[in-house]
């Protein structure tokens, strides 16, 4: 069997800066995002270190998903500076984010429902296809060899996430917990440096949550992928993450180790509400 991909193996079309664990992978400085008069995110700064699991938490409407959308280039902030792999980003489209090594999953599963699990994950490899689209259509020569290599990679991910039994099942027929897992598989197929997970455990039962937690830890450990995740289940956040940033009404109210954040009065107030 092939050795699993190590962080160093990742071939990025963007730049070739090699970072060690602990270096700043992503830095966010004074970012603000407005929709007309609505301030979704205001003046937020934090960073994500290479190899860590970083949680972003906060009550509903705190601006967590907006923050994720800013990171992967779906929204363009009006103010602030985003540095990824030491390079300042000006403006970017989501597909360029993928090219740079950022992949994500969505709060509401966004898979191709009519396609099989295998096809969905193969779709994750699309950005890595280098052969000519016409050769791909007739499936010949280099295109065939390339697809076989991609299939090999996809099979490794299928094995890793233990979804062999649903390889050929259309994802629309799968239970929710498994769909989430397929979505994670598709994100992994992009071999990202930074994996953004938007509520990976939402709507799951205890057993599914435990499985998912184990997979997130395994991905982090085995592939060395840096992970930024949004999650509401405090138990999960405290167990999984290395550092936590807390947002409330678009502002950052705390940032630090899980234990510190848990004790922070402002965080407790934000979650439980303060009597007025």
């Amino acid at each position, binding site marked *: *069997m092939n050795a699993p991909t190590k962080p160093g193996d990742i071939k990025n079309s963007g730049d070739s800066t090699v970072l060690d664990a602990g270096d700043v992978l992503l830095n966010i400085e004074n970012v603000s995002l407005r929709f007309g008069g609505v301030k979704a995110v205001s003046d937020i700064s934090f960073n994500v270190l290479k190899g860590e699991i970083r949680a972003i938490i906060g009550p509903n409407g705190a601006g967590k998903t907006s923050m994720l959308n800013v990171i992967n280039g779906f929204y363009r902030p009006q103010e602030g500076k985003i540095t990824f792999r030491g390079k300042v980003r000006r403006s970017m489209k989501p597909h360029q984010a993928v090219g740079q090594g950022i992949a994500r999953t969505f709060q509401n599963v966004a898979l191709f429902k009519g396609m099989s699990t295998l096809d969905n994950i*193969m779709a994750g490899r699309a950005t890595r296809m280098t052969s000519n689209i016409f050769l791909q259509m007739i499936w010949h020569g280099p295109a065939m060899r390339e697809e076989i290599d991609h299939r*090999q990679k996809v*099979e490794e991910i*299928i094995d890793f996430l233990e979804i062999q*039994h649903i390889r050929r099942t259309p994802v629309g027929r799968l239970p929710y917990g498994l769909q989430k897992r397929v979505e994670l598989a598709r994100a992994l197929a992009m071999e990202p440096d930074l994996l953004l997970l938007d509520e990976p455990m939402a709507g799951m039962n205890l057993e599914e949550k435990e499985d998912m937690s184990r997979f997130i830890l395994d991905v982090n450990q*085995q592939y060395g992928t840096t992970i930024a995740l949004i999650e509401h289940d405090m138990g999960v956040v405290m167990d999984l993450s290395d550092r936590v940033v807390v947002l409330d009404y678009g502002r950052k109210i705390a940032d630090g180790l899980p234990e510190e954040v848990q004790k922070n009065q402002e965080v407790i107030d934000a979650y439980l509400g303060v009597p007025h």
Partner: protein
Amino acid sequence: MNIASAKDRFNAVARAVVRKEKEKTERPKNWSAGRDEDAMSGSTHVDSANDETFPGLLLRNAKQWPDRPAMREKDLGIWQSWTWQEVEDEIRRFAIGLSNLGLKAGDAVAIIGSNRPRLYWSIVAVQSLGAIPVPVYADSVAKEMVFVLEHADVNFAICEDQEQVDKVLSLQDQLPKLAHLIYDEERGLRDYDHSRLHNFESVQLRGQERLAADPAISKEWQKSIAGLKSSDVAVILYTSGTTGKPKGVLLTYENLVVTAKNANAFEGLNERDETLAYLPLAWVGDHVFSLCQSYTAGYCVNCPESLETVAEDRREIAPTYFFAPPRVFEDMLTTITVDMEDAGRPKRKMFDFFMAVARRSGEKILNGDSVAFSDRILYFLGEYFVYGPLKNHMGFSRVRVSYTAGEAIGPEIFSFYRSLGLNLKQLYGQTEGSVFVTIQPDGAIRADTVGPPATDVEIRIADDGEVLYKSPGVFLRYFKNEEATRETKTEDGWMHTGDAGFFTDEGHLKIIDRAKDVGKLNSGSMFAPKYIENKLKFFPNIKEVVAFGHEKEFCAAFINIDLVAVGNWAERNNIAYASYQELAAHPEVYKMIESHVDQVNRDLSNESMMSGAQIQRFLILHKELDADDGELTRTQKVRRTFISDRYGPLIDAFYDGSPSKHIRTEVTFEDGRKGILEATIEIRQMKPYPEASDVVREAAE
């Protein structure tokens, strides 16, 4: 791109990957170059012990069938295979590596995991050093596992993955003798302390280096294999234990080899057969079917990709020799029935028509009896339109022999498969007897008996109805449990099975129940709980039943509904439900189950011995009986005493006449956390039928 063309593309990819993989698996074999000379120079005395032990049989097979596949496993979506010669290489390197780590003759090695080739190889590698393998049920929780590991004094543990390693590590304080742990699957284990923990490959590498450094080692290894005696202990298998603590059954090479050879000869199994290994490694059945019989006959054992893909993998492999407990056949039939109910009208019509033909004549054709010519033609057409595709769908196209055992199989289910032309047979066996006690021979198959004694087996029925047998497979003794050995095995070698049964006029054995479970109602009539439970369990809607009645006024029963069958039925009948509990308590479900109970009562009233034990009250349990809660054994058998303690209030409610009862039950989740389930359960009253003889008398008056 439409779906169909996408499918073709991916099939083509899969084929291309297979080609590529084949090139890759051609590995260098120079390190084993010295082996053939060794084998030749030592061949005279190696051969003498060759086919009496499994390591000896391994050497024989590698020489006799070097290029025939011995094992396959589906990995990354592709079947990988190993020939007997390759298996010998793998085992040799691993065995030398183990001995380099300090494994000695007489040590015990726990083997924990699902059906992976490397775990099967471990068993033989351990045996080749004179040590004793102890397969352990992989799904047992740490608390259950510690008893076995402690009792067997294991020195090494070979685990499948992180899950099993974690369990063993959590117990290491209680296992002072445990020296090393070896794992197969590295995932998640990279950051563990590797001072006592080893990767399977690294152990093999150790062996390879030793072999390369000193060619004499290979010779020594063969010598130690030649030194194994057929009376040596081959394996310790722990019985799952319906009652009390598990017992370690010591089986010798002679027990297993002779039994396996007899069984191979009986069914004509040879090196061209194929089987699928998917049942627990620690269970005697899997040990005999997937290891002992394979090593003696030389056939290929296929390991599925994962437990969830067994059905698909079976379809791809199409085994020729197949074993499944009745539950698997029941589940398959349930799925087919459900799927056919959802199928279009023409398909359903065709299915019903040809199934009627099969019911009428299929079994007769399989048994070689005479059948009307028109039915022969219809059956021939049916094979083309229905039976063939159906068998293909289930992966039974090539099956020559298929067994079921462990529990009674429903006569309807049994006949269904046989009428399709599947040579399904029943056997009766025990861990203590290396499985085979009785087997049904071709042409004399009955749904309600387990057949005549197997080759070299003697059976007699004790005065109290208990079945006793004597065979070459009878175990040596229980490990560290003299008392239990004395209770089970008599001085002159007769084995107590603990089952009550009798011989039919044909000379076939019929098992009624566990001898100690057969009780009496207060009225004095016989009460055989299993007999009644099985009758109910033959309905697809009923998954599990526990009957009560010993020293009571009448017979009463707990019933577990089958979520798949009842769920589908509810969907088609517009019955809404949110949970198992809600579905189980639904009045319509009660009505349906009541009709099943009523039919069983009618059946029972026709049997003079059993008519007193008709079910007078029943209830549907609010939760599925589960091995995690201790209600079932790991092999899914009901633990009667435990259940009657746990649900004591419900049993009391049966006999104090209350129409319903509130109960709080503690449930254990898979991770060991506990929760509470509460429910008010309705108890249904049934009207028993008069005994058959009474009806006749009334009619006569």
